[in-house]
């Protein structure tokens, strides 16, 4: 480039800026820049929302302790209880569905605690579940809150229980646990309680407790008292049973207090010593084995006896020693949830579809949102271009005589193009300046509105979106100005001078 060409280039740039920021022009320029900047920032917001919000929702799901879990089984349906064999069968079925990342399967019990929240308050029952020492959920909890170690003997409160108890995160509480509700002298124990942030439990559960801690709790409270159990047996069967077991030393004690209650043949068994409920259940199991050997077809199967406590005592809630009420299937990714649910169904355990549907909904809504925002973004871009082009067209229409004069003075068509290009760059720079400034302000506020991980997602996505929008804005504004100034550049110099631009 020769020195003269360089001078001309510098002059054209200077002229372009003068043309934009002369006192009578600067308000039009500000309106153009402001409109364009607003549209660009709206675009940044919309696209960021479209891409970041589903990411945040997925992030919330993934970081939720139970988002990758499916709970199966029913507490009061003994047919569906999970024996170790059933758990293994379930693992095999799951491994067929998800061979590359087989889910972890662990059993748990649904349990209940009667808590007195405040002195003199009514006793309230809270449902929860146990976690065994090898449970992946407990491992995740330990990672979040190291004080919840393998020896933690209290309860881990969910968000809902935290709301009820009204204690701040990280605080430990001592709760009053009252065992033996109907006893004239209730057994009251103190129970440590900790809250884990974002612990939301399904099935109305409000706490987790280590299984060993739960058993220990009742052992401490000497809750394992004798309990009257009612067996629903026909009278004739009861008589036969009495005869069969009369001389059996193992059952002698328990049969010593046998009483008939009514004509329907209700059998009451009372142990002579204080025993845990599961010991009662073990006794029934052995009894069923004996009966199966002696009279394989003649008796109501013992597993249908369904022994129930006559008096409602907490001892009934002590879970069985073997097997579990429920099982938790823990997948490695939320994307595996639907396959895991299908595997559970195939294995005969209806899986709760809520979480699967939730993940699917998040992904579906993300797709819908992106489409919607794609269309809105396109409209915003088109409207921006139209607004800028219209304003610039009006300005150039008004300035057509000036353009004509420049052409009469010998300005080249490409030099007019250079002025227009430089004006595009200046308008772009001013618009982008405001977009970036507002982005910086917004970004600095984000950590106060969202948690760290979510703020990071928003910052990352919005930063990339801002870069893309800023990059796209320049050619758009050049296109807008090209169309706006086309007429003034294409007509003859005299027509331009006289404003004959039609």
């Amino acid at each position, binding site marked *: 480039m020769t020195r003269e060409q360089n001078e001309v280039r510098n002059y054209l740039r200077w002229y372009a800026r003068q043309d934009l920021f002369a*006192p*009578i022009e600067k308000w039009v320029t500000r309106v153009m820049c402001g409109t364009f900047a607003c549209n660009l920032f709206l675009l940044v917001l919309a696209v960021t929302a479209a891409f970041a919000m589903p990411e945040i929702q997925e992030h919330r799901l993934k970081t939720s302790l139970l988002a990758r879990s499916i709970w199966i089984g029913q507490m009061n349906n003994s047919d569906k209880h999970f024996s170790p064999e059933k758990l293994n069968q379930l693992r095999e079925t799951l491994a067929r569905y998800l061979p590359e990342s087989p889910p972890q399967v662990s059993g748990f019990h649904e349990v209940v605690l009667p808590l007195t929240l405040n002195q003199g308050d009514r006793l309230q029952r809270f449902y929860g579940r146990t976690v065994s020492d090898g449970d992946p959920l407990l491992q995740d909890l330990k990672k979040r809150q190291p004080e919840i170690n393998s020896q933690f003997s209290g309860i881990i409160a969910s968000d809902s229980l935290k709301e009820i108890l009204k204690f701040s995160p990280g605080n430990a509480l001592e709760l009053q646990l009252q065992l033996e509700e109907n006893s004239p002298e209730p057994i009251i124990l103190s129970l440590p309680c900790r809250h884990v942030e974002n612990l939301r439990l399904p099935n109305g559960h409000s706490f987790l407790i280590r299984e060993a801690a739960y058993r220990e709790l009742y052992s401490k409270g000497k809750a394992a008292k004798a309990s009257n159990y009612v067996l629903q047996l026909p009278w004739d069967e009861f008589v036969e049973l009495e005869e069969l077991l009369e001389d059996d030393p193992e059952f002698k004690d328990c049969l010593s207090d046998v009483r008939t209650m009514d004509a329907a043949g209700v059998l009451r068994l009372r142990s002579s010593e204080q025993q845990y409920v599961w010991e009662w259940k073990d006794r029934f199991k052995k009894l069923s084995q004996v009966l199966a050997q002696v009279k394989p077809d003649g008796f109501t199967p013992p597993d249908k006896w369904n022994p129930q406590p006559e008096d409602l005592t907490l001892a009934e809630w002590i879970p069985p020693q073997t097997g579990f009420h429920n099982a938790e299937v823990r997948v490695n990714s939320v994307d595996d949830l639907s396959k895991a649910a299908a595997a559970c169904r195939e294995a005969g355990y209806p899986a709760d579809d809520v979480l699967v549907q939730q993940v699917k909904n998040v992904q579906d809504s993300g797709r819908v949102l992106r489409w919607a925002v794609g269309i809105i973004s396109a409209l915003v871009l088109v409207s921006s271009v139209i607004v800028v082009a219209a304003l610039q067209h009006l300005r150039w229409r008004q300035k057509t005589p000036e353009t004509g004069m*420049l052409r009469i003075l*010998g300005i080249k068509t490409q030099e007019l193009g250079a002025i227009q290009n430089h004006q595009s760059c200046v308008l772009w720079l001013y618009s982008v300046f405001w977009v970036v400034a507002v982005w910086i302000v917004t970004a600095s506020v984000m950590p106060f509105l969202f948690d760290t991980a979510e703020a990071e997602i928003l910052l990352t996505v919005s930063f990339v979106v801002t870069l893309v929008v800023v990059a796209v804005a320049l050619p758009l504004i050049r296109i807008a100005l090209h169309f706006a100034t086309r007429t003034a550049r294409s007509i*003859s*110099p*005299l027509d331009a001078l006289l404003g004959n631009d039609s």
Partner: protein
Amino acid sequence: MAITWCFQLRKFEFRYQPGHKPILVANELDIPAGTVISVTGPSGSGKSTLVACLGLLRSIQAPEGTLVFHSTDGLQDYGTLPLSQAEALRRSRFGFALQNSYLLPHLSVLDNLTIPLALKGLAEKDRRAMGTEMLACMPDLLDRQDAPVSQISGGQKQRVAVLRALIHGPDVVFADEPFSSLDQHNENLMLDSLLNWQRGEIGRSEGSEQPTRTLFLVTHNSKVAATAGQFRLSIQNGELNLTRNTNAVESMQ
């Protein structure tokens, strides 16, 4: 002194639309170079159209015949002239002083005056120096050289426009009734400026040869037409007729 032509028209007819009645007709016309040519004719006769055609301000849509410009760069046939060449001629060879000043309102007096120099690639410092020198003979404009043109009078604007047509040292200046908004004193001042330029007393570097400069002076003022121009180009019913202006030649002599 041998007079060469700067424009040559042969069987030239100009129409706004094909098939329409011709606006300008010249069967055989050589316009001499290095002279002052008064362009006269009644209103609507086509004087401004002639300036637009010769100055390449209007695209000649339906040309018939030929229109050739002769400059130191050679012959330029308007019928085949590319756009870039037309722009180059307007930039370096031609100067225009029109009925209205057409100054750019957001620029100062000096910035308006020096636009042709900027387009030729002169540095800002040189432009300012030349512009200030040009304004030296007009103290009122010199004092206001950095003021926006919106703050000067109509007459001052017109004078700036006339000086702008001369500042870059063109070969041909088209002055299309440039004195219409000037009082007699300023009209004389501007006419003198144009004639001085034509004679090479303005815009000529020291030691350089006498330039061949042609001035087209479109005017309704019969006195100016009779005294200022060595030639008179009259337009009657579109017909171009070039005659030597004896009075002017005598006055010049």
